[in-house]
């Protein structure tokens, strides 16, 4: 019978390392976090062989004295928190005090550090948890940690590492995330002596995104900044038209910490649900700031997971904030919004200010008003919501006003308090009727396309998507007002459904009737359609009810939120309501455009397809080399 004994520290550290140091990327993460916590403005990361043979993180942070350098290798030794209560007020990345001893216990670990004001630096070498030497060394202020031969004391772990490429990819992704999190810190990433990326200190997140993902990427991003209570959401979100096939460009940070939060991801996807097709994902680089007490990052040693005290609150805040921004984009979407509409929109933007900031808002509105008339893009000095609003417009017209984007984004950091009121009144159509005087309809193409000449170039409109968007909102609005015209049929259509669909339709008969169908059951699984909404061709009714039954079956009408049902219904129905005229006059087509720009999201159809795109004169000239 073996007796119970306390494990030596070295063994305990190796056990902890199993949790903390999952793979080389975890080492990089811990070291980069330490560097950032030390206030570094320059971080250099180097690794070779996927981190297997060597990893080095060097910073210009505060550095450590010799005592600290030794102490930091003890378990639960940290400078970041003092008492348990500090866990509720975390401002730093790390706090557990486990990382360094764990890493040191499974590698050949060299630490060089010099604090400000000290003559010489300290070098500590630990191999597999055994302290080999401590001696003076020369180095600039800051810390340099080199981790070599990771997992050499635990060969079993080595076997679990993936290929060098895979491990390298994880490291690269990790460093990118921190680079995004801290645009103000310059980052260098070196793999096997080759510089993978080097980004100087960036004044703005947008620049950092451009550095990492490529300049072309930034054209499709717009800034967002919304504050509500003690929650702030800021960052960049993608335009709906720039949807991605994967979630890789959906990156979120909570209190500056890169996280993988289902809550946040779900909220982002949900916000775009009306704008982006199924199976595609928006781009988003979002920073959520929240009271540290309301979020628990201490779920897992790697801290990739977080828990919110109040998940629904966070989720609805994010959805509201993004939706509001997307609607602003939609309203500003027309590249031609004339000066007339500007004051109205400014007034409205002012209207959603919390009362406390009303004077500022007024000032901004005044300041932005004339600017808007002169092109809608002079910087507003006291930038608040109005500035954001104006910024939105600027970004909406990239093709026609190239170069102004940056100006818009510049203003973002200065943008102050704004409130994401969900019940923000939708502007009445009359108020925002855009001016299309300078537009000329060129003709129809490819059946569903319409071409326009706008003051700044060409616009190609997909009539089907545009009409779907218009009908979608019209049907939604119709349901809201309850004024629904139902056309009774002279020749009722009959419809046979399979038993499951039939039961589902019977369950939802009230819902179907509320949308203008008179569906009478006669006999088993047979229905007679006696009336249809007046916009529907009687011949489409059978197909439509079948589609509806299919959607019911897919569970698209589940949940208790009736509004979601109506949206789903409107999405299905809008596709049926569209009828494309083969011949179309200028007045009709300009009317279509006008109707489109009056919708809340003119950029995309309810299915998430783009409604139009622009070819600016510059673009045309470039392509034709004129």
């Amino acid at each position, binding site marked *: 019978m073996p007796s119970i004994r306390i494990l030596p520290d070295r063994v305990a550290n190796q056990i902890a390392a199993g949790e903390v140091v999952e793979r080389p990327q975890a080492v990089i993460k811990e070291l980069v976090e330490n560097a950032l916590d030390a206030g570094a403005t320059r971080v250099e990361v180097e690794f070779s062989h996927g981190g297997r043979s060597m990893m080095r993180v060097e910073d210009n942070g505060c550095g450590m004295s010799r005592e600290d350098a030794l102490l930091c290798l003890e378990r639960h030794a940290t400078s970041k928190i003092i008492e348990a209560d500090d866990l509720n007020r975390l401002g730093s990345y790390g706090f557990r005090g486990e990382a360094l001893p764990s890493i040191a216990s499974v590698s050949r670990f060299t630490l060089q550090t010099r604090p400000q004001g000290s003559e010489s630096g300290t070098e500590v070498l630990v191999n597999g948890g055994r302290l080999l030497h401590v001696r003076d060394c020369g180095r600039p202020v800051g810390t340099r940690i080199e981790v070599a031969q990771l997992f050499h004391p635990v060969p079993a772990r080595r076997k679990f590492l993936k290929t060098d490429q895979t491990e390298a990819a994880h490291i690269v992704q990790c460093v990118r995330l921190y680079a995004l999190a801290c645009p103000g810190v310059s980052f260098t990433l070196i793999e096997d002596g080759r510089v993978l990326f080097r980004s100087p200190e960036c004044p703005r997140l947008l620049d950092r995104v451009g550095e990492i993902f490529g300049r072309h990427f930034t054209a499709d991003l717009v800034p967002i900044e919304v504050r509500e209570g003690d929650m702030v959401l800021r960052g960049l979100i993608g335009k709906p038209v720039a949807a991605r096939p994967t979630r890789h460009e959906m990156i979120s940070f909570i209190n500056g910490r890169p996280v993988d939060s289902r809550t946040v991801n779900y909220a982002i996807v949900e916000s775009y649900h009306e704008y982006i097709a199924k199976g595609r994902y928006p781009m988003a680089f979002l920073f959520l700031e929240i009271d540290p007490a309301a979020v628990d990052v201490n779920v897992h040693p790697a801290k990739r997971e977080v828990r919110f005290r109040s998940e629904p609150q966070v989720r609805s805040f994010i959805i509201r904030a993004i939706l509001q921004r997307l609607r602003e984009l939609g309203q500003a979407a027309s590249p031609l919004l004339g000066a007339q509409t500007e004051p109205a929109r400014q007034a409205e933007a002012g209207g959603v200010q919390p009362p406390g900031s009303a004077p500022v808002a007024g000032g901004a509105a005044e300041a932005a008003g004339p600017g808007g008339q002169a092109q809608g893009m002079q910087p507003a000095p006291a930038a608040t919501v109005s500035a954001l609003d104006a910024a939105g417009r600027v970004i909406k017209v990239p093709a026609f006003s190239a170069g102004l984007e940056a100006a818009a984004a510049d203003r973002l950091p200065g943008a102050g308090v704004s409130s994401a009121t969900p019940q923000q009144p939708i502007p009445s159509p009359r108020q925002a009727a855009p001016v299309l005087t300078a537009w000329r309809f060129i003709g129809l193409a490819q059946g569903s396309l319409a071409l326009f000449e706008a003051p700044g170039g060409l616009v190609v409109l997909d009539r089907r998507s545009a009409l779907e968007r218009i009908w979608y909102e019209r049907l939604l609005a119709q349901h809201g007002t309850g*004024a629904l015209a*139902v056309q*009774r049929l*002279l020749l009722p259509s009959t419809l046979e459904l399979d038993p499951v669909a039939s039961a589902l339709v019977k369950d939802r008969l009230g819902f179907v009737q509320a949308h203008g169908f008179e569906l009478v059951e006669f006999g088993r699984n047979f229905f007679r359609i006696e009336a249809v909404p007046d916009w529907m061709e*009687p011949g*489409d009714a059978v197909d439509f009810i079948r589609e509806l039954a299919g959607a019911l079956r897919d569970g698209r009408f589940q949940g208790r939120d009736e509004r979601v049902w109506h949206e789903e219904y409107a999405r299905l129905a809008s596709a049926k309501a569209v009828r494309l005229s083969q011949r179309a006059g200028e007045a009709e087509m300009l009317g279509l455009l006008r109707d489109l720009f009056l919708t809340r999201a003119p950029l995309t159809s309810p299915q998430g397809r783009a409604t139009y795109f622009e070819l600016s004169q510059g673009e045309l000239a470039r392509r034709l080399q004129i």
Partner: protein
Amino acid sequence: MKFKINRDHFANGLAQVLNVVGSKATMPILSNVLIEAEKDQISLTTTNLDLGIRCKIKAEVKEAGTVTLPVKRLASIVRELPNTDVTVDAAPNHQVKLSSGGSTFRIMGIGKEEFPPLPEFGDEKAFTLEQSELAAMLRSVSYAESQDETRYILNGVYFNFKDGKFSLVATDGRRLALMSKEMDVPAESSGSIILPAKTVSELSRLLDKGEKVKINFNERRCAFQIASNKDSSGLIDSIYLYSKVVEGNYPNYNQVIPKETHQRIKLERQLLLDCVHRAALVCSEKANQVKLKLTSNLLEITAQSPDFGEAHESMAVNYSGPDLQVAFNPTFIMDPLKALTKDEIFFEVKDEISPGVFKTLDSFVCVIMPVRLT
């Protein structure tokens, strides 16, 4: 082939056949007109395989023969020729020389071998009608055809010869128009066809060129021989219109025509049309209905659209029944009123969910289904 022809006669003949051209790029011959010259006439034929028209014009034929030419282009050239005398001369390589006064055109043609012949009819069911009467009947119903191509059965006018009656019916599922006349229908000739919308419009255009029109049909196709004796513009004999018919069962229309009359009001057609037309000016795509309100001796017509405004029309009528109110799509009211010629019409209503019925003294019925606001 060589012939001399009057320019206006030629242009008129081409105008008769011009509308029927094929849309398939695989058969370019279908956008050509077949010109056949023999004796003292030329015949012009076009077809799109579903529908074909042939007409004959008098001409001075010097040399018999045939050729096909692009019809649209030919028609626009002929119309513009400077002199009324036109000479057409086709070389064996199908190149056609067209000369008139000082202008000469050379047009590339295609040989007649590729041109699909119009099927001729034998001993099918046959009826002869007055052209003017058929034209009026078609006009009274054809507006109610369905435009929705998914319901192809309804994309046309139903011709029914049965039980001593000839009836024309059109419906789009929300309204139905029926016009019938007494006629001697022998039992062996009784039958029905659905004439496609395109043929209906061509037929309506061609009618009224003479007195009689003869119709032959079987289950798959039909043909009209439209006498053109009244026409002085060079057409001779009759115009032959061939068409496939829509195959399928037409809905039982008798079943949907209300048997009982509840409230009947006599109305002045033009007055009602004007009132509804004015009221409908405020309608929009979102709110496309007019409300009819009947009270003692008063018919009120109102329409409104939320983003524009409203209209109110009132007209005195002879009515003593209960107050009632019903809404319709304004087009459904205006279409029959526009197509009819009688000054006096009858309108029958019951309540807000029952159909409205227009009638005239000469067996015309138009049933329109109401719109209800939920």
